[in-house]
């Protein structure tokens, strides 16, 4: 079980690996509550985003189950008009990392690589 400091450091490391960071949070799937959060923009309500994202993840897990898939959901990448959103599930499936980035300053591959690298360090 990671401490809040460890989660916070992890988010900072991810932020340091990329430009265009908007916000990131580590969220408890069941409750939708944030365990750690960081945002570079005051107009981005991370608590609200995290709560919605846990509903989204649950919805997706339902779909995966309905499709009869045995493999677990690892991550989700959303390409929006002006943003990239990434959700990375931690092993165990009770927690996930949510990251929002500005599409003009970075790309999907950079975001994905940065997240995978630092989540692996924490959860290995």
């Amino acid at each position: 079980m990671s401490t809040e400091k460890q989660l916070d450091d992890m988010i900072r490391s991810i932020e340091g690996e990329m430009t265009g960071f908007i916000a990131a949070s580590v969220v408890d799937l069941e409750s939708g509550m944030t365990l750690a959060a960081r945002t570079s923009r005051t107009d981005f309500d991370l608590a609200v985003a995290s709560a919605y994202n846990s509903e989204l993840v649950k919805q997706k897990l339902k779909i995966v189950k309905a499709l009869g898939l045995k493999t677990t959901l690892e991550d989700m990448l959303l390409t929006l008009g002006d943003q990239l959103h990434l959700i990375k599930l931690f092993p165990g499936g009770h927690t996930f990392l949510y990251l929002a980035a500005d599409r003009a300053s970075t790309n999907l591959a950079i975001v994905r690589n940065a997240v995978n690298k630092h989540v692996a360090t924490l959860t290995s």
Partner: protein
Amino acid sequence: MANVKESLEKIMQSEGAVGACVVDSSSGMMLGSIGGGAGLNIEIAAAGNTEVVRAKRKTMRSLNLNDQIEDILITLGKQYHIIRLCASNDALFIYVVLDKTRSNLAMARIQLGEIEKNMQIA
């Protein structure tokens, strides 16, 4: 006409080639890669170089340069990096890493140009 895999294999035949990949600059992800290894994480390189291409394009736009990028050559201490934009599809580029001591940049550049022209993405 050669596909991505064949084109990458041909690139590796160039003297001094360490690794290469074909990248989709809209996502930074690779359509295919070859070589690399411990000294070169091709995936990270592809993602990072996507931003190089995007930045260059942005600069050209702000300068109102009505022109196309053919290639970008970067000389490092021990390596040459060549980014070759695909004329057939401007979202794609080929990224090649060469060992400086074993390669001839001019030759590599010309060969890469030919391979790019001959490459057909399915």
